[in-house]
């Protein structure tokens, strides 16, 4: 059975992508037919020994032809670029009410966690006709989250977060494939995306094992793993309070500022000596190896839930210890946020 020539089109983006693909296919077929046709016609008509007219071409014709087809090619290609670019720009703005799904990729499986706590391995259940935002990271090497039916692909990087979003338009089960070579079982890192009607999705959700949502899990971890021992108000250890710091500027040693986003929090947990807050001693122990990526995501969600109130003023004392990290401190490369930051409230004028 020959089967289909194009995958199922099951998302909003798939429609746009397919339109461009078909347009390009038609244009390419025409250009190819033109070139091959001319080659054949000329080769046969002007084959050695044939009686066709062969007077030399006037020079002016050859120059004008050149300029003509060069200009035509440039205009055609710039038009295609403009068409493709305008479809792509839309794909980067995440709708504000998107369901957030956290994905952790590791060799060779996908760990999926909804912000309401539902956890899955190699499967992702989503409702149809609702925007879904994927916040993804990897535990080891670069993977890539690919759902052909949605025309969706985004690489998943270690120690960074990448984001992508989609809105499924058809129910059904669709392939999820890893598409960045990641080692021995790269080809076996398959999963399924299951799109359900809203009622079925709600029923599925309620049938999941009782789990706190991500922020509550994070709150539990915050106290169980000892973070509250220093960072809670009233602690004997002088540590910065974490209430209200989400996405606020944080003053660091040496007069620089960092923004307290997910990347900064992750760095502070795993490499606390790097960007020490001004006025504090670098005494926080590293949690590298003690917290896995899923737990870090939960704690991040908790701190985010604590809000972003301005006005948390820290006392700027004189630094008493210098950072001994070799090479100096610098801003690390942040998560790619394709067009939309991670917001608590919707930004102005974001089109769904």
């Amino acid at each position: 059975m020959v089967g289909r020539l194009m995958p199922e089109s099951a998302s909003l983006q798939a429609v746009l992508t397919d339109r461009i693909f078909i347009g390009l296919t038609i244009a390419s077929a025409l250009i190819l037919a033109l070139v091959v046709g001319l080659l054949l016609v000329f080769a046969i008509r002007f084959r050695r020994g044939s009686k066709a007219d062969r007077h030399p071409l006037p020079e002016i014709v050859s120059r004008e032809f050149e300029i003509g087809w060069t200009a035509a090619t440039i205009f055609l290609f710039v038009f295609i670029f403009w068409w493709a670019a305008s479809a792509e720009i839309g794909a980067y703005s995440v709708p504000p009410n998107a369901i957030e799904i956290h994905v952790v990729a590791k060799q060779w499986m996908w760990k999926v966690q909804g912000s309401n706590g539902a956890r899955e391995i190699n499967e992702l259940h989503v409702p149809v006709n609702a925007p879904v935002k994927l916040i993804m990271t990897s535990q080891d090497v670069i993977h890539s989250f690919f759902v052909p039916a949605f025309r969706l692909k985004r690489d998943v990087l270690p120690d960074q977060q990448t984001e992508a979003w989609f809105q499924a338009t058809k129910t059904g089960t669709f392939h999820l494939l890893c598409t960045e070579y990641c080692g021995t079982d790269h080809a076996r890192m398959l999963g399924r995306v299951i799109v359900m009607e809203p009622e079925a999705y709600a029923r599925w959700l309620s049938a999941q094992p009782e789990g706190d949502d991500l922020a509550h899990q994070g709150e539990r971890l915050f106290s169980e793993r000892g973070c509250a021992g220093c960072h809670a108000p009233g602690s004997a250890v002088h540590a910065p309070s974490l209430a209200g710091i989400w996405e606020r500027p944080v003053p660091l040693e040496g007069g620089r500022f960092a923004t307290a986003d997910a990347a900064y929090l992750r760095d502070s947990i795993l490499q606390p000596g790097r960007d020490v807050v001004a006025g504090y001693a670098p005494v926080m122990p590293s949690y590298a190896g003690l917290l896995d990526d899923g737990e870090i995501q939960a704690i991040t969600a908790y701190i985010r839930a604590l809000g972003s109130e301005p006005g948390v003023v820290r006392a700027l004392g004189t630094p008493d210890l210098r950072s001994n990290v070799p090479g100096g401190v610098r801003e690390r490369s942040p998560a790619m946020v394709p067009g939309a930051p991670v917001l608590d409230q919707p930004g102005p004028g974001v089109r769904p």
Partner: protein
Amino acid sequence: MSTTAGTTASPTGLADPDELDLRLPVSYLADGHSVRSWLLTTDHKRIAILYAITITVFFFIGGAAATLVRLELATPEADVLRADTYNKLFTLHGVVMVWFFLIPSIPNTLGNFLVPLMIGARDVAYPKLNLISWYLNLGGGLLAVAALLAGGVDTGWTFYVPYSTVFSNTWVSLTVLGVFTTGFSSIATGVNFIGTVHLLRAPGMTWFRLPLFVWAMYTTSLMFVLATPVLAVTLLLVFAERTFGLPIFDPARGGDPILFQHLFWFYSHPAVYIMVLPAMGVVSELITCFSRRKVFGYTFMVYALVAIAVIGFFTWGHHMFTSGMSPYAALVFSFLSFIVAVPSAIKVFNWTGTLYRGQVGFESPMLYALGFVGLFTLGGLTGLFLASIPVDVHVQDTYFVVAHFHYIMVGASVSAYFGGLHFWWPKITGRTYPETWARFAAILMFFGFNLTFFPQFIAGYLGMPRRYHVYPPEFQIWNVLSSAGAAVLAAAYLMPLGYLTWSLLFGERAGNNPWDASGLEWRTSSPPPRRNFFGSPRVQGGPYNYHPEGVAPVHDQPRLPSRGSLT
């Protein structure tokens, strides 16, 4: 050393000795028979032969890997190879084919042989450097083979971090050193060609009288010299991180894996133009000779070569659209990728226009050249698909990309290599090959190639990822077609090995100019003497003087002896 007309008793193997002074220098092939005279030669023609031998060996190593890969992919399950073995094989295929076959193929064999001849020089500018570049290439190749024999490398030819620096348990460092070494071979060749073309042109050979093949070699050499050092340093960084544990790309210590991708593709995108520009140069020579016409729009063709070489340096980000790169940078790269397609389109139109009002013949080099134009056009058009970000997001890292680059690298570049090999075979070896077998092989190659790679476009858009040795069963039909085509293609590649070797031993001796071609290389014997020319060439007109101004083309036939064919 007297000869009787028409016999082949003369050691120079000339078919037309009356034309020349009787005290002839021997051909470069007869000029010394010891192994030492070959392995320590500084004759660019012998070095070209040395390269031809090594790249042929590497071609068959890479081809063997591809055969096993396609055998495994004929079924959706893993029934031929284990996962690790499969991963090592596709990596071997990529590394060997790119660095040890394709990049040296036309520049180091045909380029080394022909550039001095075409400009009327006695040798390249730096003959000893030329020999060193062969040894560097060989050394790098031996390191890669050593890595293969020691157990292989499984990172893919792109060595993405952090898999290659931290996670892979295979011989990454050894392979990386091999590629590093071969990179210097490319740089040396580039320096040599630039020096040769600037300094050693015969009197009267101005820049705009150079054959397009020489222009193609020149622009390729510019890319060799500007791009390869970046690869060398990047591979050195990978080696340093893997061997000495230096924190460079490791994200856990503040590095950025995307930085590796930027550095790697800054070289590897111009590398694909390094692989295609020489092929374009060959095709310009073939189409003009077998249409008996000047090339259409010589000046635009030259500027198109330069434009591809320059603009090609600005487009590397299109390999990284889904990598986590910023969307603004992605738009810039997408735009530039569309722009770089324009000069290629100009060249395709000009080749087509060259046939107009010509006297078109269908000898085997011309079949390869016509095949090139068709396959390059299709491959180039699919490049536009990949430059469009929404489509690329869907097909990146799928078989669509595999099909695209094979259309260019194999359909176009390898076809042009075979076309050039056949065209200049009489000049290089002094023998002619059986034309009927050659035509059959060219046609078989064209059909086998399309059967192998066109289904991969479909499989790719359907979503079949690259580097998968097992796959969902709905992709099987396309894989079966592709594997069947690969069998045909393999047969088509083995045929030239057969009849060209036969021709070395039993082929009829060639005259100086069996194709009645223009170009200085045809104004000397086949094969040429050690010092290339019998006198000092002087150039009085432009290239491709197939029909002088204002005179209608004459019915003519290339003087190609068809005796000596196997049929």
